[in-house]
């Protein structure tokens, strides 16, 4: 390795810039900077609220629910009796109602949401995309209680006057649609839930579809596929895991929805086959009865309902997030405050 340093150095004498830094040529003691440590400590403290909050919620629910858990054990989940007078509590109708209403909502919402997502990403003209996206966001912004008001005074009368007779005419022979339509019913609950979760499933599905590389579609088109065939055969299968995740996130939302549901579902502790019958969900039960809970055991039972609801929802959401992350690689897909 050869190193040469010139024997002559140009002695350039120029005025230095007005010195604004405190640096001088000689070594000097350097200041200690604490800002970074303070900043990191402060932010870490703020960030710890989330794990602590989760622990607090689970602990609090479990502790408050303990008397009920202790008394009823697992029978809580399959007993249908809910009798505050005799202090016997079984949450089966609520759990049943939660699952049925949510599933019904999914059956209705998934085609609609996928329609929105596919239309926006594949077929809609460019100028239409932002407006429609905005409208879908607005649907998500409508408060639950407003959906509830609309459900009581518009949806249910329409269902009663037009939809129910029509459905009964076609499907009345099935156990799902027989009997009198009371208005406040599982059907109304499912429909309103469907409208409410469409924007969530649609938004996340759309992001999933956008994350599918363009090359997938192009390869299919290059092979001579029609536009629809390219979507159905190449794009959708690629994003399948993410879309399932989106649907599950929608399910998670439906499971926990409270106000609109309690306003239209009838709030009756009953397991019925017919969707025309009133029903109940866990969230609706808590909302309705928490203030009325007269005894400690009643309250504890409601806390147990809350715990069950929390565990189910968290489980569904966690699983759904993992699915969505697989396709969208850890970005905040679907975490926008939609």
């Amino acid at each position: 390795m050869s190193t040469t340093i010139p024997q002559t150095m140009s002695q350039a004498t120029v005025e230095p810039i007005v010195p604004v830094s405190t640096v001088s040529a000689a070594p000097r003691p350097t200041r200690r900077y604490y800002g970074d440590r303070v900043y990191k400590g402060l932010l870490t403290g703020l960030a710890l609220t989330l794990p602590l909050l989760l622990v607090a919620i689970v602990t609090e629910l479990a502790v408050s629910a303990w008397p009920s858990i202790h008394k009823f054990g697992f029978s809580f989940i399959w007993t249908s009796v809910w009798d505050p007078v005799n202090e016997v509590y079984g949450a089966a109708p609520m759990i049943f109602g939660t699952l049925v209403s949510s599933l019904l909502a999914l059956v209705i919402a998934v085609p609609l949401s996928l329609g929105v997502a596919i239309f926006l990403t594949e077929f809609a003209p460019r100028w239409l995309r932002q407006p429609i996206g905005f409208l879908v966001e607005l649907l998500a912004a409508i408060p639950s209680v407003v959906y509830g008001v609309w459900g009581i005074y518009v949806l249910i009368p329409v269902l009663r006057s037009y939809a129910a007779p029509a459905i009964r005419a076609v499907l009345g022979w099935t156990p799902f649609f027989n009997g009198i339509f009371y208005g406040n019913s599982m059907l109304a609950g499912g429909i309103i839930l469907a409208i409410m979760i469409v924007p969530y499933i649609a938004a996340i599905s759309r992001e999933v579809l956008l994350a599918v590389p363009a090359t997938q579609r192009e390869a299919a088109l290059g092979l001579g596929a029609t536009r629809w065939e390219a979507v159905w055969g190449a794009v959708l299968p690629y994003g399948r895991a993410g879309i399932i995740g989106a649907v599950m996130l929608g399910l998670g939302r439906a499971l926990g929805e409270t106000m609109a549901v309690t306003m239209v579902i009838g709030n009756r502790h009953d397991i019925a086959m017919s969707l025309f019958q009133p029903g109940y969900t866990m969230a609706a039960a808590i909302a309705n009865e928490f203030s009325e809970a007269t005894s400690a055991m009643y309250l504890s039972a409601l806390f147990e309902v809350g715990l069950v609801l929390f565990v189910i929802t968290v489980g569904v959401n966690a699983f759904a997030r993992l699915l969505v992350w697989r396709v969208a690689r850890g970005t905040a897909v679907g975490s926008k405050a939609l």
Partner: protein
Amino acid sequence: MATETLVQLETRRLSALFGRNVIVREVSLPFPRHTVTAIIGPSGCGKSTFLRCLNRMHELSEGGWSTGQVVLDGQDIYGGGVEAVDVRRRVGMVFQRPTPFPTMSIYDNVAAGLRVNGRIPRGQMDETVERALRQAFLWDEVKDRLRGSAVALSGGQQQRLCVARAVAPAPEVLLLDEPTASLDPAGTQRIEELCTELKARYTIVIVTHNMQQAARVSDFTAFFYMGRLVEVGETQQLFTKPNDPQTEAYITGRFG
């Protein structure tokens, strides 16, 4: 002793690693005061990593660490008690892609490095900003729109703005990491002219892919290969009669 004051910045057996991977091996390289030293070599030879050790940016990368010394005016910048933040205020850097701060005006961009050092009277800041922009050959083009958005400038202008930003705090050394890589020929030429002018005030180290650029702009050239310093010498000499066969092979285009 005469050598001491001539050399402003010097590395002594500097090695840079990512985790267990050695990227730069035991490089001892002096940078004489008020000269331009170009660092050339094929892709992946460690040039940029080496450069980033000179202002302690390498340690900010995931898993990045180094051994050896980097001596600036007699003080090892990796020594105990030396804050990296202070080092970066004495050793400025311009990157491959122009990175003006998008939410700040041209004026604020240039002044950005000044404000970290505490409050400066308004008049003094105005003067400093003007001098920095003049040094970067940008003053005439932007003097009427100092409050305008920095991102409205062209690519070449943005890069000169980054140079102005880097020189405004009066650093001692200026590091340029392939500064003309994303510029058109006109922009490239202006940056090269800048180098020649600026060496009167600063010691300049420029990493470049472009051998002709190194030949045009630098007093000394160092050839890196596979993380090692293969040869360093006066530019003229290195390009016409290199000592090492590897250097000759690279310069004549047999690989790279």
